[in-house]
C-alpha cells in the first residue's frame, strides 16, 4: 500500500465529514450523511461510511480509490446500488453491506471485485440470489447472507465458489436442503443454517463438503436425524439442538470420527442407537436427556476422550462392567433418572470428580464400587433403594465433600472415609434412628438427618431456637476424649420444643405430654 503524505493527523487529505489517519483510513461513520463524501484521498485504503443515511450508490462513486481494501456501508438505508457503483475497486477485500434495505443481491455491481474475500449482505431484505451473483468473485472466502428472507438455498449462485470457506444462511426461511446443494464448495469449513424452517434434507445434500468442520442446524423443524452428515469426514462441531428429532440411529456418526462437540438437546428424543456414539475419539462431552425408550447403555468403545457424560431419563437398568475401561478421562458422570439397579466398579475412572445416580433403583454399594476415586468430590445417590453400604465403601474417597444419600432405605452409614465431607444429606431414611456422631465428620458444615434429635450431635441442643433450621456460627466443642469437633453451621430438621433431643420412643402423645 503506497504511503500517504504528511506526519500528524491534520495533514492527511480528508473530507470535512470524516476523520482520516495517516495510514489512509477514513472514518465517516454516523454523521448523518446521505451521500458518499467528496475530498477524500485517492490513497484511502479503508473507508467507513456505516450508520449514515445513504439510500443509493450511483455509478463510479468509488472510481478514484484504486487502493481501497475495506469499504463499510453497514447500517445505511441502501435500496439500490448502480451496476457501476463499485467499479474501480480492484483491490477491495472486505465489503460490508449488512443492515441495509437491499431486496436482491446487487450482482452486477459485484461482478468486477476480483480481490474480494469477505462480503457481508446479512440483515437486508434479500429474497432472491441470482445465479450470477458471485460469479466474478474468485477470491471470495466468507459470505454472510443471514437474517434475510431467503426461502431456499441459493444453489446456483454457489456453484463457482470453490474458494469459499465460511457461509451463513442462518435466520432465513429455508425449508428444504436439495441434493448437491453445496457440491462445489470443497473449501467450505463453516456452514451455518440455524434458525431456518428446514424440515427435510435430501440424501446427498452435503456431498462435496469434504473440508466442512462446523455444521449448525440448530433451531429448525427437522423430524428425522440428518443422515446426510455421513458425507462430512472432517466434521468437528455439529449442532441440531431445538428440532423435532425423536431418534438417533445406530452408527449415526460412523463417518464423522473427528467430532468434538454435538449439540442435540431440546429434541423429543426417545430412542438412541447403542452404537451411535462409538469411535468418536475426539468427543469430550455427551449430553443425552429424556430418551425414554432407550434401554441399553450406549457402546462407547473408541470414544476414549470423553470427559463429561450425561445420560438421564432413560430405561437403562444396567451398566457395562468395563465402563471405566473406555472412559478413563471421565470427570463428570450424570446417570440420574434411569432404572439402574446395580453399579459396577468405577475404579478405572481415576479422574472422576462428580457422580450422580440420583433417582435410580440401586440397592447396595459394594466395597469396590467407588474405590480409589481420590478426585471424587460430589456423590449423589439420593432417591434410590439403598439398604446396605459396605463399611469401607467411602474409605479411599479423600476428596469427597458433598454426599447425598437422602431418600433411601438406609439404617446406618459407614463411619469411615467421611473426613472431608462438608455437606451430608441423610433425610428420608426412616429406618436410620441411631444417633450420629460428629467426630466421624470433622469438616461437616451442613447436614440433613431423618430425625430432629439427630441434630443434637452436631448443633448442641439449645431447644429455645425458633427457626426451622438451626444456624450457629462456626465454632468448635471439645469431645469427651479432648478431640476437637467442629460445630455444624446448618442442621435440619433442628430440634425444638416439640422435637426434644432425647428420642422419646418416637411417640407423639408422649411428646405432647412432655410439652404440657
Amino acid at each position, binding site marked *: 500500500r503506497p504511503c500517504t503524505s504528511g506526519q500528524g493527523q491534520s495533514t492527511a487529505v480528508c473530507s470535512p465529514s470524516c476523520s482520516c489517519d495517516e495510514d489512509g483510513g477514513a472514518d465517516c461513520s*454516523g454523521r448523518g450523511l446521505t451521500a458518499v463524501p467528496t475530498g477524500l484521498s485517492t490513497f484511502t485504503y479503508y473507508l467507513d461510511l*456505516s*450508520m449514515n443515511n445513504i439510500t443509493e450508490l450511483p455509478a463510479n462513486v468509488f472510481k478514484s480509490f484504486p487502493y481501497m481494501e475495506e469499504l*463499510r456501508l*453497514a*447500517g445505511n438505508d441502501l435500496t439500490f446500488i448502480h451496476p457501476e457503483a463499485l467499479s474501480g475497486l480492484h483491490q477491495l477485500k*472486505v465489503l*460490508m453491506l*449488512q*443492515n441495509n434495505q437491499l431486496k436482491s443481491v446487487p450482482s452486477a455491481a459485484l461482478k468486477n471485485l476480483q480481490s474480494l*474475500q*469477505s462480503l*457481508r449482505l*446479512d*440483515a437486508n431484505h434479500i429474497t432472491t440470489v441470482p445465479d450470477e451473483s458471485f460469479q466474478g468473485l474468485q*477470491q471470495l*472466502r*466468507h459470505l454472510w447472507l*443471514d*437474517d434475510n428472507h431467503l426461502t431456499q438455498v441459493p444453489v446456483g449462485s454457489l456453484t463457482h465458489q470453490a474458494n469459499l*470457506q*465460511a457461509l*451463513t444462511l*442462518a*435466520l432465513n426461511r429455508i425449508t428444504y436442503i436439495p441434493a448437491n446443494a453445496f457440491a462445489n464448495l470443497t473449501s467450505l*469449513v*463453516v456452514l*451455518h443454517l440455524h*434458525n431456518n424452517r428446514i424440515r427435510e434434507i435430501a440424501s446427498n445434500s452435503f456431498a462435496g463438503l469434504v*473440508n466442512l*468442520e*462446523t455444521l449448525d442446524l440448530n*433451531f429448525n423443524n427437522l423430524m428425522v436425524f440428518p443422515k446426510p452428515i455421513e458425507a462430512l469426514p472432517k466434521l468437528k*462441531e455439529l449442532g441440531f439442538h431445538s428440532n423435532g428429532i425423536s431418534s438417533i440411529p445406530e452408527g449415526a456418526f460412523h463417518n464423522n470420527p473427528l467430532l468434538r462437540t454435538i449439540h442435540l438437546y431440546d429434541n423429543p428424543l426417545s430412542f438412541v442407537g447403542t452404537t451411535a456414539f462409538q469411535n468418536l475419539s475426539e468427543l469430550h462431552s455427551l449430553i443425552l436427556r429424556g430418551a425414554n425408550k432407550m434401554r441399553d447403555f450406549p457402546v462407547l468403545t473408541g470414544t476414549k476422550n470423553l470427559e463429561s457424560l450425561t445420560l438421564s431419563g432413560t430405561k437403562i437398568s444396567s451398566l457395562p462392567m468395563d465402563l471405566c475401561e473406555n472412559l478413563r478421562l471421565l470427570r463428570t458422570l450424570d446417570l440420574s433418572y434411569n432404572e439402574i439397579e446395580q453399579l459396577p466398579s468405577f475404579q478405572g475412572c481415576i479422574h472422576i470428580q462428580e457422580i450422580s445416580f440420583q433417582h435410580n433403583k440401586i440397592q447396595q454399594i459394594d466395597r469396590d464400587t467407588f474405590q480409589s476415586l481420590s478426585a471424587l468430590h460430589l456423590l449423589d445417590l439420593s432417591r434410590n433403594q439403598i439398604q446396605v453400604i459396605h463399611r469401607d465403601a467411602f474409605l479411599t474417597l479423600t476428596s469427597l465433600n458433598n454426599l447425598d444419600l437422602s431418600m433411601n432405605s438406609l439404617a446406618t452409614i459407614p463411619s469411615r472415609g467421611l473426613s472431608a465431607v462438608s455437606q451430608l444429606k441423610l433425610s428420608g431414611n426412616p429406618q436410620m434412628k441411631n444417633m450420629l456422631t460428629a467426630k466421624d465428620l470433622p469438616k461437616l458444615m451442613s447436614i440433613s438427618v431423618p430425625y430432629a434429635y439427630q441434630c443434637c450431635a452436631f448443633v448442641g441442643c439449645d431447644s429455645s431456637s425458633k427457626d426451622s433450621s438451626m444456624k450457629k456460627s462456626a465454632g468448635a466443642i471439645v469431645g469427651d476424649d479432648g478431640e476437637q469437633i467442629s460445630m455444624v453451621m446448618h442442621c435440619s430438621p433442628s430440634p425444638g420444643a416439640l422435637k426434644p433431643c432425647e428420642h422419646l420412643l418416637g411417640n407423639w402423645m408422649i411428646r405432647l405430654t412432655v410439652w404440657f
Partner: protein
Amino acid sequence: TEGPPSCPKGCDRCSEYNGCVKCKPKLFIFLERNDIRQVGVCLASCPVGYFGMRNPEGNNRCTQCKIDNCEACFNRNFCTKCKEGLYSHSGRCYVSCPPGQRTANETMEC
C-alpha cells in the same frame, strides 16, 4: 424512528449509567468497558476481536473471537482476518504454515 432523544445512535432503550441496554433491530450491542462500568453501544459491525451473533429474538450481540492472533472472525472458532504477518488456514492463524501446506504470500494463506 429515533429512539428516546437522550439515547445514543441506534439505541432503543438506555440508562444513564450503562448506556444502551436495547439496540434497534438488526444492530449488535457491544459492551464497552469504562473503568468498572460496562457501557452498551449499538453497532452495525463489531469491533476488532469480536463477531456479531444474531438471533431471532433480535438481541444480537458482539461476542469475542476465541482464536489466537485473530482480528476478525466469522464465529467463535473461525478467523476471517489474522493479525499482520500471520498466515490463515481453515479459520486459524499461524506464524508459519502447518506441515504439508504451501504458503500463498499474496493472500497470506496456507
